[in-house]
């Protein structure tokens, strides 16, 4: 038997979402909360969110949902967005910092990958990271530009992130 971390209802082993309250039973040591909607956006992003509509100024809002930490990171991709792990000693401050999400333990490199819009499409490029980048379980070659679609699951090292690209049609 499992006990739901949110409502304490008893659930069968193997239950993924509590049948009483719908909360996540597993997949993460960190209990999730509905507050994940209000998680503050990272610095660079805060300025862009709310002012940039999809398609305007060429910027496309994209949400990165980190499974392990239940954190949602919103970023508006206009030119290149660096995904990695910050290291003040080396002076590396990526646009999307996965350090707080257990990036070090999960094998995220300091400069891991680049998100960018190329020919109107969202793309990802692995920057020769130590532990690789995977799209839906398939490892992508370093320095190869790969298209990224909404709902894709991207793995930086072993850190899993679901991508949601906001479209104008909603």
């Amino acid at each position, binding site marked *: *038997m499992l006990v739901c971390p949110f409502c304490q209802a008893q*659930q*069968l*082993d*193997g*239950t*993924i*979402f509590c049948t009483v*309250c*719908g*909360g996540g039973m*597993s*997949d993460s040591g960190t209990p*999730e*909360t*509905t507050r*994940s*909607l209000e998680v503050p956006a990272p610095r660079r992003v805060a300025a862009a969110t709310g002012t940039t509509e999809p398609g305007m100024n060429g910027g496309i809002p994209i*949400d990165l*949902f980190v*499974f392990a930490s*239940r954190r*949602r990171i919103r970023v508006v991709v206009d030119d290149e967005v660096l995904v990695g792990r910050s290291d003040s000693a080396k002076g590396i401050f990526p646009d999307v910092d996965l350090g707080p999400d257990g990036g070090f333990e999960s094998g995220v490199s300091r400069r891991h990958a680049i998100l960018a819009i190329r020919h109107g499409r969202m793309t990802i490029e692995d920057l020769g990271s130590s532990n690789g980048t995977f799209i*839906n379980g398939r490892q992508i070659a370093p320095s190869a530009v790969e298209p990224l*679609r*909404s*709902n*894709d*699951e991207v793995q930086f090292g072993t850190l*899993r992130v*679901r*991508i*949601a*690209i*906001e*479209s104008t049609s*909603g």
Partner: protein
Amino acid sequence: MSTEARIRLNQLLSRTAIASSTEQQLVYVLLDIQPEGVPAQLPQLPLNLCLLIDRSSSMKGERIAQVKAAALRIVELLGETDFFSLVVFNDRAEVLAPAMRVINKQDLRQIISRIESAGGTEMANGLAMALQEVQRPLVKQGVSRILMLTDGRTYGDEGQCVEIARRAQARSIGITALGIGTEWNEDLLETITASENSRAQYVAQARDVATIFADEVQQMHAVFAQRVRLTVAGRPGVLIRSLDKVKPFIAPVPIIEEQDLHWVAQLGDWSGSESQSFLVEVVVPPLPIGMHPLLKLQLQYDLPAAGVRDQIVDAIVRINSLAAEDVQYQVEPTVKHWLERLVAYRLQAQAWQKAEAGEIAAASAHLKMASTRLLSAGQIALAHMIDAEAAQLSQSGQASEEGRKRIKFGTRGLVGPIQYRQIEHEG
């Protein structure tokens, strides 16, 4: 059609291995069912379609204009072997075109162009007349359906509507009920269509009517298998907790234990252009270490165009039981994705029940959790909309009519035209 056409059954488990345990465990099985070898040019089965239109005064303006244009589109898509009838209703119902073969399209166009909106909404009479018309032609083989569109609330005859709908469905006549605007009774339309081959859908924008009508005719024309039914036999101790369609839209499917450890579900007609997925929740009994057959699945169906009945496809679902220390607890992401969307749908349904019972805080909490589920499933816009509606509900004690409909049908994937050929990883 050659008998090469068949249905393929694929399975994906939430976990391929479970820990050997003395307790029951839950496993989710995603069944992906795809037509295979269906020729691109199907010999079409004759259609028998009755269009049932609410012409109450609230339909005036853009709505009735769009509906008339969409009805004209249907007439264009039908062929000489198809039957078409047109019934309109307001305070009373009227057969504008009795069921007949679509030979004189010009007459039908004129009839459609003369529809005018006036009066109230009394649905039961309309439904009864539509059923009468659909039953008129003697079609030995074919696809029969009532396509209904309404924008209003019918009063006092709801029970009768459901009764007529059940009679139609028992005779293999499917019902598609489309609601337009914000005034219609979504609970009634959902009840009317709670059966295989039937569904309710929210037409959020009047201009979508034409696409939805045309899709409907195309889906009917593409039907290649009928009377599709799933039987599940379980090993001793197994329990099937639920069966839900998740693709192309979410719908709970009744599954009945007809005999001990032997379940049956009716899945209805199948279009050759459509892939469907179902999620089964299976309670697994304690198992010793080793590989075990868990379920025996059997899909039975008829191929009417080939004149073949009771085709069968089998599959065995197996599960590996390992020593606890050898089990890697990892959830299959595709199974989790669809489960997450299904859970969101269930949560919102519970929320409305709670709200009805006056438990506003609990209702709002359920909506918020539904929003969290959808967010993690990548349905960002819907998640934010539900979150906003949850906030309004907890502040004012009421959700908006439109919000309720958008959430109810949005979580099922039934707002606007349906993505029949949904690509898994598209936004």
